[in-house]
């Protein structure tokens, strides 16, 4: 059937028409071979715009369509659907990108118009060669993997599990809870973090639809939306999870005491320990790096310590009575099959030792935000008392904003939550130590959220000293008697234009939220992309902020960008809804633009087999030819380029189609 092509040039208001002369382009298109009709219109993606296409298909009997407008990443699905509605196979459509890659990036109208013409010519040449393709449907595995057990992962897991579907919740640490579990209060409502989070954590631990894989990490992923296979490494815990009752006797016996990560190193824990009072799972774990027995074993020493297991019999102190301790446990790899994945791996706090002049790690009583959270937490190392390293109470505290954020030397972005948690800290200080002076050193107060500005005003009323200026330096080199023994914060009060030296006892650094160091590795395993700032990249920042470019994988919470708990939870619920929608549909469409091997041309050289990243090509020993597994092929085309016999066809990206496009842009 001879191609009969309709070409539609979009003005996109003035977005395109402001630079590209759209009527000239449509005149040009009209004269191209095989073009039956060419029109330009204000908004092609609008209903009237789409109707233009549908009507022409029906009335003029078009069998190919080209739209020149925005990026295909934006509206290809829209126009494909319009074609389909009018009875045309959706693959008989092609888009020319004359906005993102033309009108928005050029200033010379004439050259931009010429370029737009070339792009349209290319699309017209290409579309003439398009073939109708049928998308296939495969069934959908209803299980979901959630990676990361912070508030984001917990929320998503619960919503999916509650609707009756199985969830694997993967957490690399010994307990779920993430950062929120470390807080005492949360802004702006000052809810007790434990009161709102621990019930959810417990529910996760007991939910019959949730399989909690704590102390575990993902190592490999294969498959595609609806049918993923993941390899999970369950790291040895040295505890039998079934037998352990979480009684804590073992910890009491253990002689090895080390800084507790959960308390940011401000408190101590044992080598065998239960991560926190509300840990889920509430079971012991042995820290192999510090356990005397396991260290000894690694060095070939036969039997060191084991007090936790054996107890101290002569003092009538029995060891673990449940016989739950198992020093022979090994790391274990399990494989699970799932249909969807939600990534909720969160953030890490910026390490302020990098900013030498702030004295963190060098001067006593300079704390990070998370450390201060632990100091105010009733179950923290000081039982919630705000104390200096020497055990006394501070008389003056300075809270320093934007540490590692909004700073080209570290992170350019604003971390979005630190203004608010700094206010929270100020409030907790006013409440716990009413006579202590509190200074907030800020550049801008960023309090955009429901009830946030009101919280700021409340803190002003509570008598906190707000100084507009970023601290330049924290020093213990004092100059006057009243500074003696204190930390001096140097700052310009930019509202009065005076350099000030603030003598205080405690400095809190409101540190940036940054991507976790293993984000790159995780992105590689899951084939996700990252943004310039290192956080995971969403599919579209406005219109699809929870999906990724890989179908079936969603990102939620602080692994996408710094965000607070309300935003995190909203996003987690959104992703859960997306997953549930797919599960309820039960089927997924698989890509039709994939590779196909012409058995007559295939020489059986097997070069393609090694080329395929998805092991989609197998060799037929009988016919001595290769074959593509349609469910596994993702259509990258690497094999097509590599086949010496030219036997592989990359559907929708055939050599002829691409060549035609190249000829077209050069026309």
């Amino acid at each position: 059937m001879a191609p009969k092509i309709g070409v539609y040039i979009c003005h996109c208001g003035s977005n395109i028409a402001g630079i590209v002369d759209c009527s000239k382009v449509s005149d040009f298109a009209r004269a191209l071979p095989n073009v039956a009709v060419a029109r330009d219109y204000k908004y092609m993606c609008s209903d009237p715009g789409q109707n233009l296409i549908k009507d022409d298909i029906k009335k003029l009997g078009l069998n190919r369509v080209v739209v020149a407008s925005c990026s295909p990443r934006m509206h290809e699905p829209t126009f494909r659907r319009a074609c389909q509605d009018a009875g045309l196979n959706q693959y008989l459509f092609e888009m020319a990108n004359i906005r993102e890659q033309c009108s928005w990036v050029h200033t010379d109208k004439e050259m931009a118009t010429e370029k737009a013409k070339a792009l349209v010519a290319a699309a017209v040449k290409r579309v003439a060669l398009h073939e109708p393709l049928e998308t296939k449907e495969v069934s959908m595995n209803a299980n979901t993997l959630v990676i990361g057990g912070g508030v984001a992962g917990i929320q998503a897991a619960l919503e999916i599990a509650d609707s009756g579907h199985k969830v694997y919740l993967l957490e690399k640490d010994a307990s779920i809870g993430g950062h929120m579990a470390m807080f005492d209060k949360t802004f702006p409502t000052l809810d007790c973090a434990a009161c709102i989070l621990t019930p959810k954590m417990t529910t996760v631990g007991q939910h019959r639809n949730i399989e909690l894989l704590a102390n575990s990490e993902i190592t490999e992923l294969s498959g595609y939306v609806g049918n993923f296979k993941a390899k999970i490494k369950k790291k040895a815990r040295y505890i039998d999870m079934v037998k352990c009752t979480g009684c804590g006797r073992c910890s009491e016996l253990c002689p090895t005491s080390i800084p507790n990560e959960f308390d940011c190193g401000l408190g101590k824990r044992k080598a065998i320990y239960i991560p926190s009072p509300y840990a889920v799972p509430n079971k012991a774990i042995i820290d192999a790096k510090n356990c005397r027995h396991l260290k000894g074993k690694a060095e070939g020493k036969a039997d060191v310590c084991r007090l936790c297991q054996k107890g101290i019999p002569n003092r009538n102190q029995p060891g673990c009575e449940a016989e739950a301790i198992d020093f022979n446990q090994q790391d274990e790899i399990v494989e699970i099959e799932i249909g969807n994945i939600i990534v909720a791996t969160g953030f890490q706090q910026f390490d302020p030792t990098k900013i030498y002049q702030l004295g963190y790690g060098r001067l006593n009583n300079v704390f990070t935000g998370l450390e201060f959270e632990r100091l105010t937490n009733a179950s923290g190392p000081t039982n919630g008392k705000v104390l200096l390293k020497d055990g006394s109470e501070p008389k003056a505290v300075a809270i320093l904003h934007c540490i590692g954020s909004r700073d080209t030397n570290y992170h350019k972005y604003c971390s979005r939550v630190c203004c608010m948690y700094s206010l929270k800290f100020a409030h907790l200080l006013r409440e716990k130590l009413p006579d202590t002076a509190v200074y907030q050193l800020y550049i801008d107060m960023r309090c955009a959220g429901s009830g946030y500005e009101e919280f700021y005003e409340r803190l002003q009323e509570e008598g906190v000293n707000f100084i507009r200026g970023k601290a330049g330096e924290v020093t213990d080199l004092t100059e006057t008697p009243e500074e003696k023994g204190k930390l001096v914060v140097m700052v310009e009060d930019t509202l009065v234009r005076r350099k000030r030296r603030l003598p205080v006892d405690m400095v809190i650094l409101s540190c940036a939220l940054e991507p976790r160091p293993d984000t790159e590795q995780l992105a590689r395993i899951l084939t996700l992309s990252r943004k310039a700032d290192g956080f995971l990249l969403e599919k579209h920042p406005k219109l699809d902020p929870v999906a990724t470019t890989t179908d079936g994988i969603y990102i939620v919470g602080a692994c996408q960008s710094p965000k607070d708990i309300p935003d995190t939870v909203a996003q987690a619920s959104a992703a859960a809804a997306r997953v549930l929608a797919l599960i309820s549909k039960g089927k997924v469409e698989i890509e039709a633009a994939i590779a196909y091997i012409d058995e007559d041309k295939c020489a059986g050289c097997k070069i393609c087999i090694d080329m395929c990243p998805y092991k989609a090509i197998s060799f037929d020993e009988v016919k001595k030819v290769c074959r593509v597994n349609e469910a596994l092929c993702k259509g990258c085309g690497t094999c097509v380029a590599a086949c010496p016999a030219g036997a592989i066809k990359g559907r929708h990206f055939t050599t002829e189609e691409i060549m035609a496009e190249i000829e077209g842009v050069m026309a």
Partner: protein
Amino acid sequence: MTFEPKIVGILCNWCSYTGADLAGTSRKKYAPNVRIVRVMCSGRVEPTFVIKAFERGADGVLICGCHIGDCHYQDGNKKTARRMPLLKKMLSQFGIEDERVRLEWVSASEGDRFAAIVNEMTEQVRKLGPFKSNGGAANG
């Protein structure tokens, strides 16, 4: 009038094409000399595409893919990189100068970088002048 080179850009869908889109959404201005052809993966690029472009009058070809390690299809770009020496050899047989063909890694967040590469390459090719094919005759 200054010589306006024609350059064909072959970009992978996931990183580089998205990066070029980002240059657009952030309104970065760059030279209008590059016309972009989209492929799913830089690993799809065949030497014949490049030769075809020159044959049809291109003065340069720019190939862009995801950074090594970031390939949407795991390591298609590594395969592209491995094919480059072969491609360059073919090009020299056709009398095509090395500087006329560039392979660059551009991620989805590097709109700036994409614009800079286009400008730089346009200038470079402008300096080289229009490409005149020797039809590959000299070396067969």
